């Protein structure tokens, strides 16, 4: 592994000799509980006498609310509370998400005079039994007057489109510009154009949204929920009109989240019902509710014009992206911002003009989903690169080699690429590992190979001034407690922290207990999203553990009669590098106690800061990126249009793999979800009415649909995470669709510009080509 010395990069210090805790596929305790079925998820915290909460949702995508009559629902035996908008102390949720000063558009907790999407919450019920809550929901009598709606983001831009919010239908309009695009287009040898459309898809985590809540002995409204972001507690407090310290959120281990538990889910509703009834309440959303009403991935319409010279060198990119935000802001401004910043991909382009708008429609609000805007654009930029390759008579590899970002090259925002982009290495490794193509069994089957490269940010944009805290302390027996507010989506976020602390403090990972995700008991780290946790909390734990070790090291040095530099921390002991004498960790801890040296430490890691000028579209954005290449071999049935994946290789440069087994797991899962996106998944709606509200109608890949995905974990160029790690949660899903598109062209000479590549679409493209 090469080492970088530029500031802010965390290279291994001499003390971190490597005790083997980091870099090995250690199995942590909660995984054992998962396999044994003993890990409790949000809906499992259930006790006698708990009430059941239920959300009453709008059956219309766009309507005025004339009146709401709750009397019959209240009269039903077993119903304890029915709440409507007027009962909510402060009926507003959601913050201005961009961090760049957009006008705030209010999202009500419960709809007041108007509903803007089908499934929007209108009323709340608490009842003694789930079926009573269901029945009461039916009895809430809402008089709706349907209104005209907007169901296509491009229609929403038309001058005469009905307004979804008084402020207009454009939520955010980001522009990034550099160089002189028009002259570069004129001078170019090749100009290729393409319009690419992507669809709405659901996270389809197996655990639907859930939580329980109660008023604890201290009078604090306490919520135990499946959430990526415990920091929403302050927002819940504001909704209830309570001081911030009166609402506590503790996150459970999640049965998958993928961004879908980043915005609040059950929290405000649960809290309102708890506050109203002064009883414990459980709220579990049904799968059908989740499919109907939870945020999805943004559908994009992407228009690309790409100019290249005769040698296939890209000169200019002119890109216009319209993203369907749905009915309320949620995180759309940020998603479209990420799309804009990454819209040209891992290539150097000196002349760029990028516009990315988030536009309101009467669809379910769209928000965060693994890949977060930087995913959709891969389909755009990689399709364009393939088109440049054909236009200039180069292979798809060669055209990329001529354009890849090199160390220090500027991004469209004018800032240099933050670390060394080893994208060429990932391309070589992925293509080398792809199985050679063997002939298909008959002439109706066509085989082809393809690949796609990508760059995916990790960490929040630097203008948020991100930070994360952690507390680490020794017990008298030498075991370690880590407290950090991180939430665990199932990706092993907590386990990684244990490994990092263990590595630095020289104890076995099994001797570290990590307490996570509790606003009142763990130092806050910020939510688990934007593939930021390893970078932020990982660094917080790394630095806190080092500070703790440094604060305790002189005691060991004195006892062992050496300098602190001569100490080694490994194997539950402190010893001298020269060998011989050693002190068990427990003895070390007790010696510190005797000398009144603290054996615990609270530390905060500050991410980079910087500013971005949204007028010029230039400045600092993401802390860093993860680069990768996916290669695929498919077989297309030219009579039915079905695509079978024969082989799949996914290579990412992760800088340093903290736990290789989990890194491979992230790759497997991202590719699987990406193949669903590329081949079959789509939330279908018609005039805002969902046709995909059953799991039977929304098919995610089964074991029969997927190949054995081959992950290649490169440790090429250090990133900004602990020990040089780069984030890996999101990058793995992003290039899949573009890789399939590239293989389709190789196999049957078509290039559908619309996702997903269903058999019908593939067949249609094959037929229109032969006509």
């Amino acid at each position, binding site marked *: 592994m090469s080492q970088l010395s530029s500031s802010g990069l965390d290279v291994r210090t001499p003390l971190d000799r490597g005790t083997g805790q980091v870099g090995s596929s250690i199995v942590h305790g*909660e995984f054992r509980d998962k*396999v044994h079925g003993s*890990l409790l998820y949000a809906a499992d915290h259930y006790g006698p006498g708990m009430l059941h909460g239920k959300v009453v949702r709008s059956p219309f995508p766009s309507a005025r609310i004339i009146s709401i009559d709750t009397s019959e629902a209240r009269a039903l035996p077993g119903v304890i509370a029915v709440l409507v908008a007027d009962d909510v102390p402060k009926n507003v949720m959601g913050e201005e998400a961009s961090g760049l000063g957009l006008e705030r558009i209010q999202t009500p907790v419960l709809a007041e005079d108007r509903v803007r999407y089908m499934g929007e919450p209108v009323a709340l019920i608490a009842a003694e039994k789930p079926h009573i809550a269901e029945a009461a929901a039916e009895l809430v009598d809402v008089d709706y007057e349907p209104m005209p709606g907007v169901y296509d983001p491009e229609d929403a831009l038309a001058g005469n489109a009905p307004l979804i919010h008084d402020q207009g239908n454009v939520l955010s309009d980001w522009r990034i510009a550099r160089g002189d695009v028009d002259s570069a287009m004129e001078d170019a040898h090749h100009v290729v154009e393409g319009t690419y459309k992507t669809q709405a898809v659901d996270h389809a*985590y197996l655990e639907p949204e859930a939580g329980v809540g109660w008023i604890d002995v201290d009078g604090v409204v306490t919520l135990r929920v499946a959430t990526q972001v415990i920091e929403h507690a302050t927002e819940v407090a504001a909704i209830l009109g309570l001081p911030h310290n009166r609402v506590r959120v503790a996150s459970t281990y999640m049965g998958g989240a993928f961004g879908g538990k980043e915005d609040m889910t059950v929290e405000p509703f649960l809290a309102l019902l708890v506050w109203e009834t002064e009883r414990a309440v459980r709220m579990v959303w049904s*799968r059908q509710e989740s499919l109907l009403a939870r945020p999805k991935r943004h559908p994009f319409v992407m228009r690309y014009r790409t100019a290249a010279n005769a040698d296939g060198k890209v000169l200019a990119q002119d890109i216009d992206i319209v993203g369907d935000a749905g009915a309320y802001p949620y995180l759309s401004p940020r998603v479209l911002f990420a799309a804009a910043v990454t819209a040209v991909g891992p290539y150097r382009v000196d002349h760029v003009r990028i516009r990315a708008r988030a536009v309101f429609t009467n669809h379910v609000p769209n928000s965060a989903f693994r890949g977060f805007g930087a995913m959709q654009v891969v389909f755009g930029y990689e399709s364009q690169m393939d088109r440049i390759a054909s236009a200039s008579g180069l292979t798809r590899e060669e055209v990329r080699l001529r354009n890849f970002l090199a160390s220090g090259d500027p991004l469209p925002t004018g800032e240099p690429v933050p670390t060394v982009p080893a994208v060429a290495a990932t391309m070589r490794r992925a293509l080398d590992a792809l199985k050679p193509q063997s002939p298909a069994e008959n002439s109706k089957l066509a085989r082809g190979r393809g690949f796609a490269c990508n760059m995916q940010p990790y960490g929040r944009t630097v203008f948020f001034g991100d930070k994360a805290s952690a507390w680490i302390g020794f017990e008298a027996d030498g075991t370690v407690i880590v407290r950090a507010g991180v939430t665990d989506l199932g*990706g092993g976020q907590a386990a990684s922290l244990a490994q990092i602390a263990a590595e630095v403090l020289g104890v076995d990972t099994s001797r570290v207990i990590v307490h996570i995700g509790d606003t009142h008991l763990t130092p806050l780290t910020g939510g688990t999203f934007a593939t930021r946790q390893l970078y932020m909390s990982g660094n917080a734990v790394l630095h806190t553990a080092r500070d703790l070790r440094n604060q305790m090291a002189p005691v060991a040095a004195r006892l062992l009669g050496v300098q602190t530099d001569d100490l080694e921390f490994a194997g539950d002991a402190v010893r001298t590098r020269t060998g011989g004498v050693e002190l068990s960790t427990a003895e070390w801890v007790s010696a510190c106690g005797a000398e009144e040296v603290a054996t615990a430490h609270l530390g905060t890691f500050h991410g980079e800061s910087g500013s971005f000028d949204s007028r010029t579209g230039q400045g600092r954005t993401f802390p860093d990126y993860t680069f990768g290449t996916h290669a695929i071999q498919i077989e297309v049935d030219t009579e039915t249009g079905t695509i079978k994946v024969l082989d799949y290789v996914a290579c990412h440069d992760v800088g340093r793999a903290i736990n290789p087994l989990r890194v491979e797991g992230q790759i497997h899962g991202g590719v699987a979800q990406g193949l669903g996106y590329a081949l079959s998944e789509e939330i279908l709606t018609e005039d805002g009415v969902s046709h995909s509200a059953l799991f039977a109608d929304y098919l995610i890949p*089964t074991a029969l649909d997927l190949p054995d*995905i081959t992950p290649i974990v490169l440790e090429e160029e250090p990133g900004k995470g602990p020990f040089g790690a780069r984030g890996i949660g999101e990058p793995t899903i992003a290039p899949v669709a573009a890789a399939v598109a590239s293989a389709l062209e190789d196999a049957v000479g078509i290039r559908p510009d619309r996702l997903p590549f269903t058999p019908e679409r593939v067949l249609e493209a094959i037929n229109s080509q032969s006509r």
Partner: protein
Amino acid sequence: MADQRISLTINQRDVSVVVEPNETLLQVLRDGLGHMDVKYGCGEGVCGTCTVLFDGEPVNSCLMLGVQASGHTVTTVRGLIDDPEGRALQARFLEEGAAQCGYCTPGIVLTAYHLVRENRRATREDLRAGLAGNLCRCTGYVNILDAIESHLGRSRSHTEASV
């Protein structure tokens, strides 16, 4: 119809519980009897998250009524801990990293247990077909299949090692 008291055997223990006529077996197992290792994923019979062994056969407990279990035997994933084969299979799941979020895991372990007991020579393709009714959103099934194959005494030539 009135509530009804039923007796059944769960994980080798005889229990008796009052069930409402329209309660699903899933609801009875979870909220009635506290078997929180049986999970809800869809209630439509699509995801297999709620799988239990019913007289030894895997079923979706969300599609059955609680009253139907009267006099029958139910095994949940917790019940496999007392079974040498079940325990061994769970150990393979752990080794191969076959659980990520773990939410699908109870259902998948039970289905896998049934598959390996039915057919010790099951091929990887057989296993894929056998698991098709259990969805997993996190793993792409690769490590799950590896774990079951390893339990059957085979190892798939493993993916390219890290460098």
